[in-house]
């Protein structure tokens, strides 16, 4: 089977560390932009997005180009999916065009896992439904590490719609592998009890103050506006109980950082003041997105770690 990147859960700590270390090499220096390499010259990657995304798709595109690869982006509305072609057929068609990897985002949990069983070419998961978003967790870890020495023993509060968050799941798996203490916080209807069992070091609370107290990292999740029809909580009360404001930051560690996977909804899950505060590393996350995705693309496409990938 092809060696893509489907999720964090199946990765070893060593593999994650290797990606994070390599991403550091790709970080831009002193106000310059990302350096251009030819590590993936003559290689091709397809960006296949079945859900709209600007930042993740652009980030992958830039990462591929900075490594010297050709990159093609396809969005669902422009593809044959709307003509009733099955997902398997769409992927087989693209695979026949001989790219070295397919980057894929899909609204269904497990869609890339299902496809990888039927496809030789490695798939990089750019977010599957409410399951995983592995490169987001990697770039979050890179960003935390840039501010401190290690993840072990850190107290990380993840706040919001945990039940439907692929960002939360991937972060839980990653942080847990490195020995962090993870506090998941949100309204009870969006915080299933079973979350406690998915990885070691996870605790749950519905109280935001409790989650933030002594936290080293505060990770806010986006309110999924598209899920507001599922009335698991009162939308009007959300910001009052689960929106991050400056006063919350006093409860956290003095050097605590505020993270958000973006795009942010100002005044919904985070106040403008908190988002723009000195503690916020939201733009550092965006920047690290490119270096981390360069490391992932290199790992998957260079052939070093792949087996069964399409020959060229």
């Amino acid at each position, binding site marked *: 089977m092809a060696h893509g990147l489907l999720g964090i859960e199946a990765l070893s700590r060593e593999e994650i560390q290797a990606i994070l270390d390599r991403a550091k090499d790709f970080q831009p220096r002193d106000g310059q932009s990302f350096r251009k390499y030819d590590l993936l010259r003559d290689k091709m990657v397809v960006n296949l997005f079945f859900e709209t995304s600007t930042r993740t798709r652009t980030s992958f595109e830039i990462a591929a180009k900075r490594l010297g690869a050709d990159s093609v982006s396809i969005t669902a509305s422009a593809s044959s999916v709307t003509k009733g072609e099955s997902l398997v057929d769409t992927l087989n068609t693209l695979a026949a065009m001989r790219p070295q990897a397919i980057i894929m985002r899909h609204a269904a949990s497990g869609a890339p*896992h299902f496809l990888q069983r039927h496809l030789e070419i490695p798939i990089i998961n750019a977010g599957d439904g*409410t*399951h*995983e978003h592995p490169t987001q967790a990697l770039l979050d870890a890179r960003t935390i590490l840039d501010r401190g020495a290690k993840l072990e023993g850190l107290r990380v509060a993840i706040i919001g719609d945990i039940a439907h968050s692929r960002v939360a799941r991937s972060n839980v798996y990653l942080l847990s592998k490195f020995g962090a203490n993870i506090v998941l916080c949100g309204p009870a209807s969006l915080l*299933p009890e079973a979350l406690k069992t998915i990885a070691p070091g996870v605790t749950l609370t519905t109280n935001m103050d409790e989650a933030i107290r002594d936290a080293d990292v505060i990770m806010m999740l986006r309110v999924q506006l598209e899920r507001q029809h599922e009335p698991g909580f009162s939308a009007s009360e959300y910001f009052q109980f689960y929106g991050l404001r400056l006063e919350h930051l006093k409860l956290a560690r003095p050097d605590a950082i505020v993270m958000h996977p973006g795009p942010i909804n100002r005044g919904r899950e985070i106040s403008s003041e908190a988002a723009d505060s000195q503690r916020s590393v939201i733009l550092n996350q965006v920047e690290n997105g490119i270096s981390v995705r360069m490391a992932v693309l290199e790992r998957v496409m260079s052939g070093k770690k792949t087996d069964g990938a399409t020959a060229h």
Partner: protein
Amino acid sequence: MARLLIKNGRVIDPASHHDGVADVWIEDGVIKGIGVGLNASGAEVIDATGLIVAPGFIDMHVHLREPGFEHAETIESGSRAAAAGGFTSVCPMPNTKPVNDNATVTSYMIEKARRHAVVNVFPIGAITKGSAGEELAAIGSMKQAGAVAISDDGRPVMNARVMRWAMEFARSLGIPVINHCEDLHLSAGGDMHEGAESVRLGLRGIPGCSEDVMVARDILLAEVTGARYHVAHISSRHSVEMVQFAKTRGLAVTAEATPHHLALADRDMKPYDSNYKMKPPLRGSCDVTAVLEGIVNGAIDAIATDHAPHPGSEKMQEFESCPFGILGLETAIGVSLEQLVHPGKIGISRLVELFTTGPARILGIDRGTLSPGAPADVTIFSMDREWTYDVNKSFSKSRNSPFDGKTFKGGSVATVVAGEIVWRG
């Protein structure tokens, strides 16, 4: 005079409390007698030495997809799969197209079966028109046409008042009401059992309580109406407890379990493999244990497969887009032996009951016995013969089974319907 002699098998007939090595003598489609050293002259002989000879197995819960979905299964193909799995009678659910909610459809199914099926087909009629849950179907005329029970399987009656009417009417007609218990509001959008696995996989959950609240409601209604009420494919531990409770209160409440709910829990599911997607979903391990206990202590009366064929084109999709349901007819005996008899949870005669007298009593049909004069439906199976299930060789038109490639110890060897050998392994 067509004579068939099944020799030297261990004949287990729970209805007549017979269990011992004997011959079964069949003439003109009817059981003539059970005895030792019967004269074989002029008869076709099946040597059943080392095998179990039982009344024909009844699967009271299948989907034959005809009329309307013949690309997935037909009455003929489903009946052949049934015969290969050791079943001599099957009860197709009414979720066909059109829905079996009137005597015309019921008669069509029976007529199709008479011409093309190799096993007996006893249709189950709908409870409500179009199984829409609002207006009662033509229950009386369906019964006259041959329907043996009513159910809106897959589309449970959400309105308790409608369910009460259905139970009152069914009681007056003397047929059972079968419900697929699922509160559709609680289960909405769910793809698998709600628990640690669904959270881990990021799939929406179908909570155990979505089954329990409807079982509870229906048991209360069964008490009010005095109806015979049957829980289809019971899967949650609290539901099993409630059925047991109803029985201790003397209510006419029964339940069936599927082989897959005896064998598999949510954590056994291959991630995002739609061959593990069905309703009710594979539950937690403690639910599996409770269902097994329910079989042992008698809370559960029958094993039924919920055989639900879907063509590959529908199952080869993102998990959440795939339809619910898996094949079951050909693997039922193998899975049941593995989960119940081989580990010593129940004896072989109790297993035979679960496939014969159990469903026959629930439905009130004259099957499930080898008594002289009974229709000569016989299931001959092995308890120890090893075989491997290859779904690509299935008699079903579909291929959706989680048991493909699995090796079983014991399974059907020959199936006799009305004195005719309809399948031989």
